[in-house]
């Protein structure tokens, strides 16, 4: 179960709305390497992990991803507040606006709705943890790309925080993979599924 805490993990306080930025940052909510995919990936992978330590790492990182979804939601919400629809005609945000107004809808920067294909659960501890290592790197690259396009320090600050979290999560998933490999049956030299072939 979970308990909600009525605060953001890191503050989001954006003075100047800018719907064009929301249109690219939305990818880190509902895009292929976004926070929604990360949360569902880790929280669902937990069930087939062979060791308590790795169940714990996935639980704690998966829960933190829920807090990151909320931060991205807050960024999108603040970037699109008080906008005049006439000002967005012909801008990249117009398509989003006509379908979702200024609601927070998980989709990619290219407008593709969130797809559960991003969740990546194979039911094999080694396959899943390698997926997670790649996922953290891909999310970090996406944040790098967002930072290449954004000048506003109010937006850069929380995005930089989220980027740093990808790097730390990558470290912990490295630990999780090592812990899993260390405890494999010594006869399982090719590291076949330790979650199923016991």
């Amino acid at each position: 179960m979970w308990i909600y805490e009525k605060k953001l993990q890191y503050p989001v306080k954006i003075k100047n709305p800018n719907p064009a930025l929301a249109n690219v940052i939305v990818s880190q909510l509902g895009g292929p390497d976004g926070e929604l995919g990360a949360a569902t990936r880790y929280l669902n992978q937990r069930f087939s992990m062979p060791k308590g330590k790795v169940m714990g790492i996935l639980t704690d990182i998966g829960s933190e991803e829920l807090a990151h979804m909320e931060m991205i939601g807050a960024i999108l919400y603040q970037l699109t507040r008080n906008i005049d629809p006439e000002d967005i005609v012909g801008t990249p945000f117009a398509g989003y606006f006509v379908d979702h107004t200024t609601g927070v809808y998980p989709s990619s920067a290219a407008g593709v709705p969130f797809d559960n294909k991003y969740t990546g659960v194979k039911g094999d501890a080694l396959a899943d943890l390698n997926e997670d290592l790649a996922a953290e790197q891909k999310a970090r690259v996406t944040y790098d790309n967002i930072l290449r396009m954004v000048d506003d320090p109010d937006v850069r600050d929380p995005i930089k925080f989220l980027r740093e979290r990808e790097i730390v999560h990558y470290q912990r998933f490295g630990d999780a993979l090592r812990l899993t490999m260390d405890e494999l049956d010594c006869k399982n030299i090719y590291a076949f599924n330790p979650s199923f072939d016991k």
Partner: protein
Amino acid sequence: MTREQKKLLDELRAVDFTLVETVLYLDAYENCEEALAYYHKQHARREMLAKEYERLYGPLTAAGNVSRTSWDWTKEPFPWEYDAN
């Protein structure tokens, strides 16, 4: 949000961040005595700050509604508002 509330909220967020990091570290390195001692130190500080925050500014969780006469849990601003940060 007043300057005082923001100061306390930022302090709480900072100590909570140290706990997020320490918990993740301990998940992987459970025998690190230094990390476990730090976890307990930060946890005690977190409890103190959260109690103070809830007494002054309202509940952090639905179970933290201190008042016996008013339901403060749904009072604005919610965390995603400009004025809540």
